C-alpha cells in the first residue's frame, strides 16, 4: 500500500513538474549528475505501475504482503551537493527527513506530500483492524476489551485495560490455566504493526521458547488492548510470565512498529517499573526475528530470577 502511495506521490509531482515545465531549466541537470541513483530508484517503481491499475481491488491484500523493497533507496533533493558522499553517509545514518532541500523558505512539494502520506499511514494504522488471515495463521482467537470503538479507545485508555465479560468467559473456557509462558497479541495503537511483524516475531519467539525448554499456554488476540490489559489477563490465567506483543503508537518514520511488554506474574495493581519492554520492532528498527529470539532469553531470565522490570538483571 505504501508503495502505491509512493507511486501516487511521484505521479503528482511529475504532473506538477510537467506543468511548471520549462520554467525551471535547472531541474534536469542534477538528475543527470546523480544518474546512478535515480536509475536504481526507478527499478522498484516498475512494479507499482502494474499493480496500481488494479489497486482498488487489491488494496486489502496488499497489506498482508508488505512491499519487498522495505528500505527504499533514499536520495537527497539537494541539487548540487558539495560533498555528495558525505551527504549520503548522513542519510544512511538516520531515517529522519534530512537533505530535503527547499523552495523559497518552504519544503518541496514532494517532501510535503511524503510527510502527509506518512501521517495518513499513521492515522490509518490507528483506525485499521488486524487482518483475520494473520490471526488465523497462528490460530489466535479474539477477545475484546471494553473499548467499544476507536474514538472511545483513544479517549478512555482505562477501558482498553479491562476485558469484556464475554472475553473473560472465552479465556476461562479456551485457555490453559497457569501456563509457564503466556503469549498475548494486541493491536494497541497500530493494527498495521501486527500485520507486518507478527509472522516474523511470533515463530521466532516460539523457536526460542523451544530451545530454552519453556512451555507455552494458549495464545490469543486482544482487540482494543492497552499495555496494562496484561494485568487483567494475569488475574484470569495466572501465568508465570506473560509477553504482550502490541502495536505501538505510529510515528512519521514508520506506522508498523511493535513492542513486546514482558512481566513476571502479571496481576492487577502492577506498576510500570515491573514491566520489561523491547520496543521499536519493525523492518528498519529492531529486527523482528532477532527480537523474537531475544524475548525468549528475557523470559527465561525472568523465570530464573522471578522478577521483571527494573529488578531484572539482564
Amino acid at each position: 500500500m505504501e508503495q502505491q502511495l509512493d507511486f501516487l506521490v511521484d505521479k503528482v509531482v511529475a504532473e506538477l513538474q510537467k506543468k511548471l515545465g520549462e520554467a525551471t531549466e535547472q531541474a534536469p541537470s542534477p538528475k543527470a549528475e546523480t544518474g546512478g541513483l535515480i536509475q536504481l530508484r526507478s527499478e522498484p517503481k516498475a512494479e507499482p505501475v502494474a499493480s496500481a491499475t488494479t489497486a482498488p481491488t487489491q488494496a486489502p491484500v496488499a497489506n498482508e504482503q508488505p512491499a519487498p523493497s522495505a528500505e527504499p533507496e533514499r536520495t537527497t533533493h539537494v541539487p548540487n551537493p558539495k560533498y555528495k558522499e558525505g551527504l549520503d553517509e548522513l542519510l544512511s545514518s538516520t531515517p529522519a527527513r534530512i537533505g530535503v532541500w527547499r523552495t523559497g523558505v518552504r519544503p518541496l512539494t514532494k517532501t510535503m506530500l511524503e510527510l502527509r502520506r506518512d501521517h495518513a499511514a499513521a492515522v490509518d494504522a490507528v483506525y485499521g483492524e488486524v487482518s483475520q488471515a494473520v490471526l488465523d495463521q497462528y490460530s489466535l482467537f479474539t477477545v475484546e476489551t471494553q473499548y467499544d470503538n476507536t474514538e472511545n479507545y483513544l479517549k478512555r485508555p482505562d477501558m482498553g485495560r479491562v476485558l469484556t465479560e464475554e472475553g473473560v468467559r472465552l479465556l476461562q473456557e479456551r485457555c490453559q490455566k497457569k501456563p509457564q509462558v503466556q503469549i498475548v497479541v494486541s493491536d494497541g495503537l497500530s493494527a498495521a504493526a501486527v500485520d507486518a511483524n507478527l509472522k516474523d516475531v511470533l515463530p521466532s519467539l516460539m523457536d526460542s521458547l523451544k530451545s530454552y525448554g519453556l512451555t507455552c499456554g494458549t495464545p490469543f488476540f486482544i482487540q482494543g488492548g492497552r499495555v496494562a490489559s496484561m494485568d487483567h489477563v494475569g488475574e484470569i490465567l495466572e501465568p508465570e510470565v506473560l509477553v504482550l506483543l502490541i502495536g505501538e503508537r505510529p510515528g512519521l518514520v514508520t506506522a508498523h512498529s511493535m513492542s513486546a511488554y514482558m512481566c513476571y506474574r502479571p496481576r492487577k495493581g502492577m506498576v510500570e517499573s515491573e514491566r520489561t519492554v523491547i520496543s521499536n520492532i519493525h523492518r528498519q528498527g529492531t529486527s523482528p526475528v532477532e527480537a523474537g529470539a531475544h524475548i525468549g532469553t528475557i523470559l527465561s531470565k525472568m523465570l530464573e530470577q522471578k522478577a521483571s522490570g527494573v529488578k531484572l538483571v539482564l
Partner: protein
Amino acid sequence: MDEQWIQSVGIDVGTSTTKMIVSRLRLGRMSSTFSLPRYQIVERQLLYASEVHSTPLIGFDEIDADGIGSILAAEYNKAQISLSQIKSGAVIITGETASKKNAQHIVHLLAERSGDFVVATAGADLEGVLAGKGAGAEKRSQAIQGVIVNVDIGGGTANAAYFQRGRAIATVTFHVGGRLIRLSPQGVVQYVSPNIQQWLSAKGLRIQVGQEIGFAQLTEVAEQLGRSMLDYLTGKERQVSGLLVLGPHLRDSIPVAELTVSGGVGLLMSGPPVQNVSDASRYGDFGPLLGYVLQQEREKGTYPVQWLDPDQTVRATVIGAGMQSTEISGSTVHIKPELLPIKNIPILKLELTEEQLADATRLRQEVASIYQLGERLFEKTTGIPFALAISGIGYCSYALLQTLSQELSEQYRASFPESQTMVVICETDMAKALGQALALRCKGAPEIICIDQVRVEYGDYIDLGEPISGTIIPVVVKTLAFDERP
C-alpha cells in the same frame, strides 16, 4: 551491566626494537533499555607503555626467545599486571623479523605467555593497518573527505595503510627501513639488505659492504629511497619504485590527500639535523639520515599531499596492536561459552544477492558451491574448518531464516560430518535468531556459534574471545591481504 573494562596488551617485536603496552578498553551499552542490548568499545586508555628495547637477536637471523621473554617478564612486573588480567590484545612480529627463521615459533610462544586471549600474528598488511590506527590516521580519515595514508617506517620495512572515511581501503609494504644499511661509526658500510639490491642497480646507485661511504653518497641513497617510496605512495611513478614493494602491489592509484609517517624513522624526522656520517650512524645504521631526508621532503613540499604529524611515531604499531585490534560482536548472539575462546579461524565468505535469497534452489546451489570451496581450501578437522561469513541479507524474515538455516545446516552436516562446531558470522543483526534456528536443526551435532555485526572479508582470520558478562564476545579480525579481494 552497563559498563565493563577489559585489559588488553600489545607487543611489537620489530627488526630493531621491541616494545609493549598495556591498555584498557571500556565497553559501554550503546542502546537504550528498551532496545536489544548493543555494546561498543567506547573508550581506549593507555595504562602503561614500555621503554623501546633493542630486539635481542642471535646472529643475523634468529630471534632470541629467552631475551624477549625476560624483557616481557620485567615489563609485566613494572606494569604491575598479571597474565590472568589480560583479556585481549595482540603480539606482532614485524618487518624483516617476521621472515627470520624462528619467528612463527616465537610469536606463538609469546601469545601463550601473554594472556588468555592474545592474538599471535605476523602479517605486513595487518601491521600497516594497526600502525595507521595507532598513528591516528584512521581517526583523522573520519574528519576529512579524502584519503589519508600512514606509512610506518621501521628498521626493515615500511608498512603503508590507506584510510578513507574510517575504513582501511588498501595496504602496501616496502623494503624501506633504517636498518637496511648498517654503518660503523667511521662510515664503513657493514651491511646492505639484499632486498634493495635490485632497486639500487635500477637507480644506478652503488653501495657495497666494506666500502667507506661519503656523506654525500649516503645522502643520495637515502633521498632516492625516500622519494621512491613517496613516488609509489602518491602514484607519481611505480616502475622503479615498485621494486621496493614487498608482497602484492596496489591495484590502482589512490589519490592521497594527507600523509603521516610513523615508526622509528617517523620519530627520527623530528630529530636534530644530520650533517655528517657520524650523525647519520649514531644507531649503527642510516635510519637518522632517512628520517632527516624525509623531513626535508616534507619542508620542500614537492609532493602534492598535506603532511601531518602522527599521534604516535615509534609506538604506533604497538599501540595499534594493544588498543585497536579488539572489536566486539553484536550482543544478541548464539554461543556456547565452554567452546570459547577459539583462535585462528579462516573466513569463508558467502555473499548472497537478493535473487539468490528469493529462490530456494539458487540458494542451495550457492551454499553447495561455497562448501565445496571450503572442502578444497581447508583440511578436514574435528574442530572448526572455517567460519562462514554471510553477507547480502538486508531484511531477514522468518521464512527466509528457515530456508537459510535449513540449507546451511543440512549441507554442512553432509560436507563436514566430522566437524563438531560450526561457526557463522552475519553482517546484520540476526545471529541469535539464525543460531537458534541452526541449533534446533543440528541438535548439538555440530554445536553452533553464531555472532554478528563484525565485518570480515575473504582471506581474514578471526579469533573469538571468552564472553564478557555472558554475551559480549571480543573479536580480533586479522586482515591478511587487501589486494586479493575481488
